């Protein structure tokens, strides 16, 4: 008999709840028509998309008229960076933090035709505000792209302080909120924001871009809808809105419950010798934890945990398609091998976490023993 599965890798793709699945089915039953046409079926589909847009705009503290569905969060990041960049004619540089997602860095490099200017972060993953201020001294900066929270570290940026700097220089701030919306309160300090419904339990295949009414952008393509070329999926939009509603209704209490589980896991892992627990212990997402284990092969650890029923993520080089270690871990000076990344969804219980902690502790010791690694009596977190 196989062990029950415990899914601890919900960053960017969380299990779909029964209520969200119902919304998806309702969207298919009621919203199958093309919302861009003039007949009654089309109007019904359009009403569903508009309702979904309004609900999401509300949750983001945005104006529904400036909230756009895209076909994925990555496309949203690409289009918003390209669009805001194009509207800043004559200014070419993009400023990013050193721990932005690849999609942000790649989009910035593509539109500007050169690598973005990277701002250093401290050991906890907070962006260096002095470096941001200095970078914006240049008149060539088109935009700054800085995330709300980091998907690996869990660290939440002080966006109020970041936005105070960018606004002071009239540089638009694009905020990647693809790891935070649905988990913590939406940030208020941004000029453009991108969210990822799949991260809050909607099906994959849809993204959200919100712009402030004063944020200027230009289309990347000459014709059609720049945000959702070929149209928006009505069922996915509806499911995205309902899934977010469900997360918001669970509210503070659920967030505090998950945060307590992560705090427990952080404390447990930190007392194992040679384990580097990363990210800000306080200013963080409630559901995310990353740690790295000296002398442990990350791929072997993931495989053994998977065999025991635990699905976890990793930023170790041997677990990535590029065979490069995570840029995020490198930027904060963390150990990159033996890396384990957790992102909890609301179905995770304390018993699940206890079982995981027992399993991972055993496997770390086993893998170290098998590798013939020396004892670690002097090692601890600094």
């Amino acid at each position, binding site marked *: 008999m196989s062990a029950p599965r415990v899914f601890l890798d919900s960053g960017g793709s969380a299990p779909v709840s029964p209520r969200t699945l119902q919304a998806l089915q309702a969207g298919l039953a009621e919203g199958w028509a093309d919302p861009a046409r003039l007949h009654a079926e089309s109007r019904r589909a359009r009403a569903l998309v508009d309702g979904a847009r309004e609900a999401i705009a509300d949750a983001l503290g945005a104006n529904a008229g400036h909230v756009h569905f895209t076909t994925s969060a990555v496309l949203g990041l690409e289009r918003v960076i390209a669009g805001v960049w194009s509207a800043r004619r004559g200014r070419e540089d993009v400023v990013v933090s050193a721990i932005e997602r690849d999609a942000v860095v790649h989009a910035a490099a593509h539109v500007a035709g050169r690598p973005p200017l990277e701002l250093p972060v401290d050991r906890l993953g907070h962006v260096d505000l002095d470096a941001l201020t200095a970078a914006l001294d240049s008149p060539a900066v088109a935009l700054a792209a800085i995330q709300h929270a980091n998907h690996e570290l869990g660290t939440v940026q002080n966006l109020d302080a970041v936005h105070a700097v960018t606004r002071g220089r009239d540089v638009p701030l694009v905020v990647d909120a693809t790891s935070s919306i649905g988990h913590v309160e939406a940030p208020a300090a941004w000029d453009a924001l991108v969210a990822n419904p799949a991260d809050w339990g909607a099906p994959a295949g849809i993204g959200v871009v919100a712009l402030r009414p004063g944020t200027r952008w230009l289309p990347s393509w000459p014709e059609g809808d720049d945000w959702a070329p070929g149209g928006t999926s009505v069922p996915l939009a509806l499911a995205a809105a309902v899934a977010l509603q469900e997360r918001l209704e669970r509210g503070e209490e659920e967030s505090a419950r998950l945060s307590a589980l992560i705090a427990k896991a952080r404390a447990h892992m930190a007392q194992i010798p*040679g384990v*580097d627990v990363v990210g800000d212990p306080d200013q963080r997402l409630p559901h995310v934890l990353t740690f*790295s284990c*000296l*002398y*442990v*092969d*990350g791929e072997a650890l993931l495989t053994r945990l998977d065999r025991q029923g635990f699905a976890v993520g990793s930023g*170790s*080089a*041997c677990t990535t398609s590029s*065979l*490069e*270690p995570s840029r995020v*871990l*490198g930027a904060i*000076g*963390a*150990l*990159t*091998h*033996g890396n384990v990344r957790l992102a909890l969804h609301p179905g995770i219980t304390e018993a699940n976490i206890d079982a995981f902690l027992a399993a991972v502790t055993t496997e770390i010791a086993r893998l170290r023993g098998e*590798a*013939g*690694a*020396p*004892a*670690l009596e*002097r*090692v*601890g*977190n*600094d």
Partner: protein
Amino acid sequence: MTDHVPAQHHVDSRGRACPLPIIDLAKAAAQASSGDEITVECTDPAARLDVPAWARMTGNEFLGERETDGGAFALTVRLT
């Protein structure tokens, strides 16, 4: 006071993937003495990040890196 003259150790971990270069370094460190310097030569890109991290986590001192022949890197730590 100690009579020990700091020694230089060299570890060849070229061609070995993470976490093996760090285990090689740790094994060499277990045989070495306080004040000794260990240089680990490696081709794995993760080692350039993980040798400094190892030094921080084990309370030793990372001295720096230099590129060697064929795109390899030599990373040096001093045992405290």
